[in-house]
């Protein structure tokens, strides 16, 4: 893979009419297999600073895998991924450092079960960034305040509702001051009445200029907060467009089919 600068790749130029912002995440011809299954087929995606990209698609389309690959929780076979111009390292300390810059919010929250809410948020800043405890706690409390769970700071994750846990997970990622945040179906494990409290936090994050890649089934959020919708099917990016264009005027038959299934129920 020659290292032509991301801006020179054909896909980046194609994206350039959508975003003239400096690219934070560049996914460049990435391929991945699970055994015989080709889960990511030559994926190209450029996400600029402050962009909010929502990835939609039927289940099994590879959108979660793409999200996890950007953080290298999944390996890939060919192509490259650049975060802020740096290629993802293979393993070790360099990868850990790069991951510190990429926030990740999981479907199943994954708060550290043996640590309090406050400790969950301060662990990364103290251990991975070497901040002192007092500063980390001060910042953590601000973030917990921002996501509305500051009163719960001394409780353990299991004592919180799903919606509260997910908001803590967002605060935990924010505490690392990430360059980009990945959301892997953040509301799929939540009871319906708790979905909005999480989406509200995400919407305000999007408004504040955070660069976000969101895998979700929440069409309302996509319309409201996304700069761009990326539609995936069978491991490929089938089309990408602004939310209005995508929802009202999808080009591909697979996207039309997908939309007809989810918008009519």
């Amino acid at each position, binding site marked *: 893979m020659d290292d032509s600068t991301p801006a020179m790749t054909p896909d980046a130029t194609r994206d350039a009419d959508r975003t003239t912002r400096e690219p934070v995440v560049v996914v460049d011809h990435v391929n991945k297999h699970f055994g015989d299954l080709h889960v990511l087929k030559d994926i190209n995606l450029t996400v600029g600073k402050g962009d909010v990209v929502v990835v939609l698609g039927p289940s099994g389309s590879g959108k979660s895998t793409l999200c996890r690959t950007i*953080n290298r*929780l999944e390996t890939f076979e060919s192509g490259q991924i650049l975060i802020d111009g740096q290629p993802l390292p293979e393993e*070790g*300390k360099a990868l*850990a*450092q*790069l*991951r*510190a*810059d*990429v*926030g*990740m919010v*999981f479907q*199943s929250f*994954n*708060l*550290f*079960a*043996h640590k309090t809410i406050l400790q969950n948020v301060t*662990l*990364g800043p103290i*251990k*991975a*960034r070497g901040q002192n405890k007092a500063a980390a706690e001060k910042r953590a409390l601000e973030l917990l305040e921002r996501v509305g769970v500051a009163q719960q700071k001394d409780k*353990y*994750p*299991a*004592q919180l509702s799903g919606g509260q846990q997910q908001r803590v*997970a967002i605060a*935990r*990622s924010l505490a*690392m001051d990430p360059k980009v945040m990945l959301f892997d179906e953040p509301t799929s494990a939540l009871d319906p009445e708790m979905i909005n409290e999480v989406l509200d936090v995400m919407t305000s994050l999007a408004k504040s200029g955070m660069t976000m890649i969101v895998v979700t089934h929440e069409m309302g959020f996509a319309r409201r907060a996304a700069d761009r919708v990326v539609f995936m099917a069978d491991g490929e990016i089938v089309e990408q467009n602004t939310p209005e264009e995508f929802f009202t005027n999808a080009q591909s038959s697979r996207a039309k089919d997908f939309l007809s299934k989810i918008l009519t129920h």
Partner: protein
Amino acid sequence: MGELFAQYNIFAAFGMTILLTVFAAIGSLVIGTVVAIMRVSPVGVFQRAGAFYVNTFRNTPLTLLIIAANIVMIVNLGFSFSEDIARDNIIWAIIALSVYHAAFVCEALRSGVNTVPVGQAEAARSIGLTFGQSLREVLLPQAFRGAITPLGNTLIALTKNTTVATAIGVAEISGLMKQMIEFRSDLLLPIFLIVAIGFVILTLPVGILTTYLSNRLAVKR
């Protein structure tokens, strides 16, 4: 019964049993943790070396290990820690007990690791912790809690297995029991009772403590 206590230093013999137990518990916990980390590490060579350790020592009779420690290490190879033979035997008994029980500690810890959901490790990595930090801060603290009950079982087994050290002449309680049986066969029942009750006193609190701890420290999910 009083006669026995007057004639033999039963407390000293139990003292030796406790000494063997405490040091072998510490040794096996340290070695077992290292081997367990090898077995759960992402490096193939370490995994295989860890599995080899467990399979070798878990499947070797303890008596054989202790006698081998005495004969091979001290007599044949001359690895001696002390001029005092009795002291040397105690040290080698502790080493053999540690090495043997480390295999069980490793498996107890590994079962504890398996109680920790994959997502915990992924979350730890995603906030930028290194492999070592993820282990120390997230995985092992939860794994230890999940492993308390099997670790307690191993500790109880270890306490009773210290009796094997008598095979190389360590003056712990089962050695003394043999002496008492030989010279005071008129008091057989009291002799057995004293030793049996002594072990119950040593091991029962371990069981109660680990049950208490595993309830108290259980990771709520």
